[in-house]
């Protein structure tokens, strides 16, 4: 479909193409058998790196942390439909329009899988959506940035999905079974999206001067926010300050630190940027021979906190859009319930009378 001229199709373009997801899926298939050999207490299962399932005992903190994390992940998928959905009506070719529609639909699907996974922990999707609408639960702050040009669709696929995948692949081995299994499914689909984003930029980079400039401009605006997606520093000095990382790791929810994942991401993306002929907006970016990693410049954490706390370009708009859709659709959902009561209720009465 894409042609092989831009990159070796056998070379992994994102973390979901490295074989880790397949390995996690294979593992998941035999998880139940292995579980039976271990004890059934939460601590025994965690210590043996086995999966916790919905019917197992679990500490309240574990349950609450997971509800929050899974819900926010689901919210991110739903809110994430907006910045790209914004370009469906203007996609510059019919093929791109189709691909974009399919991608945004996939995101809706991912949101649904994740809400379902969260519900296994004893919450209702309706409650979770209320919390999102009220600003009591978050979504990934990356979606508070605007998609100003067509090239932004490319940048989102390449960088934002790329970073999301980097975060999600380790979650395929998360201790909580339903979340891990949802991640396996999500990663497989998202890997495809990341390739499509790269492909958009590849076409632009081979195109007119205006197209190349468009691609460079998008990279300039999305690079740093993508690095911020991994969260604040949590190793070395930063670790001493405390935070969620340590507890989440002990519970098998988090497998790698923010900093580790961020470094892996940079190492993977820099060569791709070079292939795209894009200059990343970091004058301090250089390959460190000793460590074998790409060293990068300081991240503006002030911007991160500012945007996270509500002062980003699109925070208000994302929630307003989401709440409007929800409220405008209320009469439709109510009608479906009323219809079901009238008809299903009658059918059930008929069946129990038989």
């Amino acid at each position, binding site marked *: 479909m894409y042609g092989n001229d831009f990159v070796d199709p056998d070379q992994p373009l994102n973390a979901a193409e490295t074989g880790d997801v397949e390995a996690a899926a294979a593992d998941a298939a035999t998880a139940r058998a292995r579980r039976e050999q271990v004890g059934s207490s939460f601590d025994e299962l965690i210590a043996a790196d086995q999966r916790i399932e919905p019917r197992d005992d679990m500490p309240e903190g574990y349950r609450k942390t997971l509800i929050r994390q899974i819900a926010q992940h689901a919210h991110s998928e*739903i809110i994430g*439909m*907006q910045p790209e*959905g914004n370009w*469906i*009506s*203007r*996609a*510059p*070719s*019919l*093929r*791109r*329009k*189709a691909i974009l*529609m*399919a991608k*945004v*639909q996939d995101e*809706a*699907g991912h*949101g*649904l899988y994740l809400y379902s996974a969260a519900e296994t922990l004893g919450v209702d999707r309706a409650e979770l959506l209320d919390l999102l609408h009220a600003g009591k639960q978050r979504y990934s702050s990356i979606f508070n940035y605007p998609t100003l040009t*067509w090239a932004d669709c490319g940048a989102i696929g390449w960088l934002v999905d790329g970073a999301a995948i980097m975060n999600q692949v380790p979650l395929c081995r998360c201790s909580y079974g339903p979340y891990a299994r949802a991640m396996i499914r999500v990663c497989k689909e998202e890997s495809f999206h990341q390739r499509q984003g790269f492909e*958009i930029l590849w*076409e*632009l980079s081979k*195109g*007119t001067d*205006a*197209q190349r400039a468009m691609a460079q401009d998008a990279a300039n605006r999305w690079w740093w926010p993508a690095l911020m997606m991994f969260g604040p520093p949590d190793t070395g000095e930063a670790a001493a300050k405390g935070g969620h990382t340590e507890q989440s790791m002990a519970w098998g929810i988090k497998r790698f630190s923010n900093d580790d994942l961020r470094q892996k991401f940079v190492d993977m993306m820099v060569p791709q940027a070079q292939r795209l002929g894009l200059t990343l907006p970091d004058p301090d970016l250089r390959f460190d021979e000793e460590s074998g990693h790409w060293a990068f410049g300081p991240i503006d954490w002030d911007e991160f906190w500012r945007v996270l706390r509500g002062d980003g370009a699109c925070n208000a708009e994302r929630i307003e*859009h*989401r709440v*409007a*859709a929800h409220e*405008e*659709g*209320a*009469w*439709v*959902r*109510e*009608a*479906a*319930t*009323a*219809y079901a009561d*009238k008809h299903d209720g009658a059918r059930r009465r008929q069946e129990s009378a038989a």
Partner: protein
Amino acid sequence: MTDNAVHTSVVAPYALQLGDDALVYAQRLGEWISRAPQIEEDMALGNVGLDLLGQARVLLTRVGELDGTGRTEDELAYLRDEREFRNVHLVEQPRSDFGFEMTRMLWFSAYQCGLYAALVASSDETLSGVAVKAVKEVDYHRDHASHWVLRLGDGTAESHGRMQAGLERVAPYVAELFEDDAVSAAAAGAGAGVLPSSLWPAASAYVERVVAEATLAMPAEPTWRSRGGRDGIHSRPMGYLLAEMQHIARSHPGATW
């Protein structure tokens, strides 16, 4: 006339009507994504839009092959001016409320069910190929719309009112969909197409049945009706739709994406 001449003069303009209907309706449906009453419906409407876009792409590609210009699907979609589009007014109307949309989808898909069932036997290979695939797709679209019309009509008092209003607002746009013109008549004559008026009995019977089961009333004969779409005379929203759809592509002449 040679076969080639028939195809150029008869099939190309006919396929253009069908392709433009599908393209423009896909454009409107895409606008529902992230705005639907529930997340499952974002997916469902996206599916319908993708099906229609797929139909449009094959049909427009065929037009370009046959009309002597050799234009690609994208050149046809992005570089034609409003006067050259051959879709009916129904599909270019702006996104409104969900009741309006399900009414529009009910009529349009009922029409397309009859259309593609007949086109399976088209003398044009591409049209029959599109039809074979599309028949299953539009059956789902009609089913989906019916499902909602039932629930909204026979749901709450509010949904009943809104659904009835949707029926009234769509009514003036229905006749145009089933109207014969020189292009469709020539296509039907050549065995490549089907007369739109021939699709009316089955489509209207289907819609009437759903409307009745939904406890709604078929609207009275509207006081006005849309016309002109098949000749390139469109309603006010069409210019804006095309401006939005085309402007990025037109801003970069000759570029590939």
